[in-house]
């Protein structure tokens, strides 16, 4: 029998069995607040996209194996990664920011944008001694530096709120990790500024009157 282990914004996560294997059932449940057409369109689209991208991303990083997909029921069954989330560890060890940088760097080298790089989505499997990346529901393929830089901007935003005490250290490690993957990545990091300047009230203009 499946057991509810987490309720995210997007989906309910159950732990159950798939044959002899322990498996995660990710079920995109209806959002009561959205009208039906929009809700179904988004759930279908994201289920399909996540299944596709979980597979595609394996070329760059470790992701759970996809075992089963149902677009009509909005379910993905995937391999269970038995590990600990970075969310619960990084405040003790901010150098883990490097792992985020390296993993995003490798994804970006293959033109894969994660779209939701928060620390709950990085899981360390002690048995296999490997980092896994999960939750590809907002992920997509793009070779544009702009899209890659938005991914980095999201990291910054999330760290600032989730881990304010170690923000600086985490980000330094993150940039180092990201730069270590490709020489071109320096350019993408510079683009973060450009995106942030486009944000509301980003250019501070102040005067005495």
């Amino acid at each position, binding site marked *: 029998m499946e057991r509810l282990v987490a309720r995210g*914004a997007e989906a309910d996560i159950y732990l159950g069995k798939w044959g002899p294997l322990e498996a995660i059932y990710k079920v995109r449940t209806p959002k009561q607040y*959205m009208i039906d057409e929009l809700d179904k369109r988004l759930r279908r689209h994201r289920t399909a996209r996540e299944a596709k991208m979980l597979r595609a991303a394996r070329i760059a990083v470790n992701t759970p194996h996809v075992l089963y997909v149902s677009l009509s029921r909005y379910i993905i069954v995937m391999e269970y990664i038995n590990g600990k989330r970075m969310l619960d560890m990084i405040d003790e060890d901010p150098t883990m920011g490097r792992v985020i940088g390296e993993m995003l760097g490798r994804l970006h080298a293959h033109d894969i944008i994660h779209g939701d790089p928060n620390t709950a989505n990085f899981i360390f499997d002690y048995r296999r001694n490997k980092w896994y990346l999960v939750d590809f529901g907002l992920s997509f393929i793009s070779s544009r530096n702009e899209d890659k830089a938005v991914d980095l901007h999201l990291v910054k935003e999330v760290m600032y709120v989730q881990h304010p005490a170690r923000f600086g250290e985490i980000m330094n490690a993150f940039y180092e990790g990201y730069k270590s993957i490709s020489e071109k990545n320096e350019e993408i990091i510079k683009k973060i500024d450009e995106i942030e300047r486009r944000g509301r*009230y980003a250019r501070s203009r102040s005067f005495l009157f």
Partner: protein
Amino acid sequence: MTIGLGIESTAHTFGASVIDESGKILSNVKSVYVPPSGSGIHPREASRHHADEAPSVVQSALKEARVSFKDLDFIAYSAGPGLGPCLRVGATISRFISAYYNKPLVPVHHGLGHIELGSMLTSARDPLALLLSGGHTMVLSAVRGRWRVFGETLDMTIGQLIDQFGRALGLASPAGPAVEKIASKGNKYIEMPYVVKGNDLSFSGLLTSVKKMLASYPQEDIAFSLQETAFSMLAEVTERALALLRKAELLVVGGVAANRRLHEMLEAVCRRHGCEFKMVPVEYAGDCGAQIAWTGMLYFKNGFFVRPESAFVKQSWRIDEVDVPWRG
């Protein structure tokens, strides 16, 4: 008992309010500049309106509160972000009162004003704040003395989206209530761009597409679909933040917070995550003097104020650059 005067003049509203330290709003008077139908706010025209209205608005606020200038402990003003000419009207008057009566002057960030007034009126303690107005579309959480932005629009705000759509229909800004009314007559959903990037959102593609649709669909259905799409995006990023940050309260503030459909959606989000829904009372949702007066009170109580000669305005000013010592 400490009492203070707050003056708001960032955009179309000139407002003045007297408040005491218990949070009792003794008066909240405003006068709103209304641009001609089909056009947006003109900064110069709005500032003229403010300059004309300012003396009577301020005097009514004092009269209603039964106080005189001499009774005030401080003068707070909206120092930004906003339209330069409008900001200067409020700031100039505040500086004058401050200098003439020798009262401390407190510059206040307008967006922070929305959040802190909403927080006080709904007795929120440590909420996830959703700031929705013409100038802001942000999801925020207070951490260590700052309101930190968890997610925000990457281009235009929800208020601008609705106002610019309204303008295309020939409505005057702010067009929110009129668009809401038109949308309530629509029921056919038209597919539109839905752009959520992680915790951030983008509305500019949505605006372009609805403008194009005006030629081929009934405006009721477009307005309906626009609200459904844009509000669903807002609800989704809010839900993401609630799921991740596990806040016990959601506080919704800003002019757009008055929309009933949005209300309904966010309430449903809260139910799903076992979170308390706190919405600023509608009469205080839009720009008003009370938001500045109350936030000024918080600063004044924490010893933050300036000399009149160092008063400033900032047309562009990010909320996450502002110190909020009471949220340390």
